[in-house]
């Protein structure tokens, strides 16, 4: 019950933690390829948390949930691919 009660707070804290993680990575002068992957992975997780729990798409039929999920996944993969080829 408590788990359900504080689920939203846990999601909020996860989003804050992932954003802090991204910010700290940005402060480091040396930015290896691994950082780019981790940063984009963190962005993917954050985006999906917002789609599922803030937008409430977790409770909605899959076809509607798939649209923002696919959008996020495609955008992140394309960004990752362009950075992978240039770095």
């Amino acid at each position, binding site marked *: 019950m408590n788990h359900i009660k504080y689920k939203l707070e846990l999601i909020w804290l996860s989003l804050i933690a992932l954003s802090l993680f*991204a*910010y700290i990575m940005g402060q480091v002068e040396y930015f290896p390829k691994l950082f780019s992957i981790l940063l984009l992975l963190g962005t993917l997780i954050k985006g999906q948390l917002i789609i599922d729990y803030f937008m409430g798409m977790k409770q909605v039929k899959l076809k509607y949930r798939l649209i923002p999920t696919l959008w996020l996944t495609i955008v992140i993969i394309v960004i990752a691919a362009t950075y992978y080829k240039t770095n």
Partner: protein
Amino acid sequence: MTKQVSTKKLSHPPGDFSIWIVIYVELLTFGLLFMGYAFSRRSDVELFNASQLVLNQTSGFINTLILITSSYFIVKAVQSIKTMAKEHQAQANILASKWILSAMFLGLVFLVIKVWEFSNIFSMGITLSTNIYFMFYLMLTMFHFMHVMLGLIILFNIRQKMRLDGYSLEDHIGLETGASYWHLVDLLWIVLFPLVYILR
């Protein structure tokens, strides 16, 4: 029986379906701009990395925390109506109104920080035509800025209705519509911030 009800998926996303058409179109538009930024970077990586150093990552990070938290407040407002309005409609509207007001305050702080950031950028003589990085930076962030402003107008109208105890358990579609739009604004920034401010 209880388990069946709790696992049943809703047939439509929260709020008026027309807002979801808007949301899907906005996602497509911003998605193309994000990918356009990433492809353009390939032509001059050094320029993008050097230009990115001009930006204040801390203000971008603070704005990320602000939008995430304001989105959380909006969810709390919707929850207040859904869980309390059946028995205590007036109290539910008062509580939800406070959450909305808090979210609006954070939205305003976001705008103030962005204006400060824009003024710093402009004071350095940087404009849309300085280089391709700043063209994308200004275009993406100003476009997003306008979405935050529209979101605030929507939240203001929702709060006005709340002051009249306008939302009930049966009728809160307007609240969910505005909430969905605000979460879109948050989602877009979640991708925009690392892409433009951090990733190099």
